[in-house]
């Protein structure tokens, strides 16, 4: 198991955004997370990546490390990388700097070497830059390397965020709605790149996605959230026919008797 949570909870005031979720994820799996808006998917990501503190009694384990109380930067050093629903692009930095800043946990030299500015540093910096240029050309942004990130189009930004998250060579990559706002052609292209990256780097993936076709086609297994609780888990086919899932998305099927009662009130 690369990621394991036990009794994971988080409440904002009286609202239980995540309520006692037990979650297990084996290595090399592609897990989809679906659920209606406000069901706690993004909160789950924020808890695991350490951006929110979880409520007492929760337990999160990543790759053998207890990360329940770890700050986000420490979790990142264990090899967990994520993207954000609102991208959080570094707008005023160049594209290549964006990707290189994702490399931070792997930077080999010490601070004082950098202050003195030894030759070693510039050699290593150049090596990093070359590696990151390779990554950029893999996602197809090499031509834009020196432009500001704010000058990219929406689809290019999604690719850049993906490249930035990959730059740290994570073990687990968590993608928060990677395909939101893309046209169907671009979605296919993006998913193809994600799959290639998974093969290349041996990633484990968690994908939150509202486009069900993407989830059903690419994921090995799917977890469904509703009202902060895990309501179903299994292969895409199993989840598709699960009554609780259908209820969460479409509402409950009623017979005539129930309908009459509901309308009377």
């Amino acid at each position, binding site marked *: 198991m690369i990621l394991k949570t036990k009794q994971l909870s988080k409440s904002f005031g009286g609202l239980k955004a995540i309520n006692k979720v037990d979650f297990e994820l084996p290595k090399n799996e592609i897990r989809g997370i679906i659920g209606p808006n406000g069901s706690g998917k993004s909160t789950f990501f924020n808890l695991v*990546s*350490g*951006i929110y503190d979880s409520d007492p009694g929760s337990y999160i384990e990543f790759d053998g490390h207890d990360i329940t109380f770890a*700050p*986000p*930067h420490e979790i*990142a*050093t264990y090899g967990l*990388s*994520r993207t*954000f629903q609102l991208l*959080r*692009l*570094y*707008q*005023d*930095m160049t594209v290549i*700097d964006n990707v*290189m*800043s*994702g*490399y*931070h*946990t792997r*930077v080999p*030299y010490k*601070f004082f070497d*950098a*202050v*003195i*500015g030894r*030759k070693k*540093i*510039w*050699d290593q*910096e150049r090596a990093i830059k070359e590696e990151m240029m390779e990554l950029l050309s893999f996602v197809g942004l090499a*031509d834009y390397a*020196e*432009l500001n990130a704010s*000058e990219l189009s929406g689809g290019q930004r999604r690719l850049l965020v993906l490249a*930035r998250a990959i730059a*740290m060579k994570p073990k687990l990559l968590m993608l928060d709605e990677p395909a939101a706002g893309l046209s169907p052609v671009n979605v296919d292209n993006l998913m193809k790149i994600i799959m290639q990256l998974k093969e290349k780097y041996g990633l484990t993936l968690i994908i939150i996605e509202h486009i069900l076709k993407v989830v059903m086609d690419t994921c090995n297994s799917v977890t469904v959230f509703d009202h902060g609780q895990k309501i179903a888990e299994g292969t895409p086919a199993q989840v598709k026919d699960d009554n609780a899932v259908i209820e969460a998305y479409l509402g409950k099927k009623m017979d005539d008797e129930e309908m009459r009662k509901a309308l009377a009130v």
Partner: protein
Amino acid sequence: MEKFKSIIRDYPFIAFIIAFVILAFVPSVVFTDVYQSHLATLIFVNIVVAAGLNIVKGYCGQVTVGHVGLFAVGSYTAGTLFLYLGLGFWATLPIAIIVTAFFGVAMGIPSFRLEGPYLALATLGGGEAIRLFIENGNFFRSTFGISDIPTPSLMGYNFDSPDRYYFISMTIMIIAVYFSFSILRSGVGRAFMSIREDPICAAAAGINVKKYKILAFILSAMFAGAAGAVYAHMPPGYIHPNNYTVIEMVTFLAMVVLGGLGHIWGGIIGAIVITIVYDLTRPLYKYQLLIFGLTIVLTILFMPKGLGGFIDRYFLEKRFKKKTGTEKTT
């Protein structure tokens, strides 16, 4: 030429040594009177402060308006060390840098919780508090100022006039700029920039946000401390609390903003331009604040990346056109 370029790329300090040699000949070749050497020293002091301010404000994005307080700490550490212990420049400079670094930590702690205008208010309070503390303390000679701070001497040679002190301030400036250059070009500079752009995403990418924020404050404080000590020992060796008011802060800010926030040479370009303009507009001293305030506002409105960014942009667009053969769409 290509070979020379690659040598500079591997050993950037060679470029700084060349700059040192060129600048060393400037007083004897270019300058016509002593006052110009004095002005050059002021420029160098301002460059050191602005380079430091660029780290914390331009790169790390922490809006600090109390930097002049740190500058004052540097000056007064040097001044009081001379006053009570009789120490000379070579002893006071490192002590001033270390003491100011501690004040930098104190100035940086609010940045964990505050950002933007709120942090500006907190640091403004910090800077003013330092000045008022100096102004009202007999220990620091309050409003009399500390006078007769000696100029440094090295191996029997005393740098006791502006044209001689020029070499001291220039050396410190070259070293400081070299350090800021290597720090900002490395991964540390990138970490600072990502904190400026988005602290949450920076944390998720493995950057220890608090550590790097404090690091930025310490580094810039050290620059300010060094500049302060150089300023205190500058002939005629007189410091007064009135040299560390908000007005000075506005000029420092104007330097960094005009030169280009987050541009590696930004503070340096700005310091040169603003110090010269400041000197030329001395007869219009009533309007100086107005001029610098307007400079900040107009630069942010029409040239948000400052002179440095403007120049960069020009070359970038040229390169992009050559590479892709198209005009860029922005």
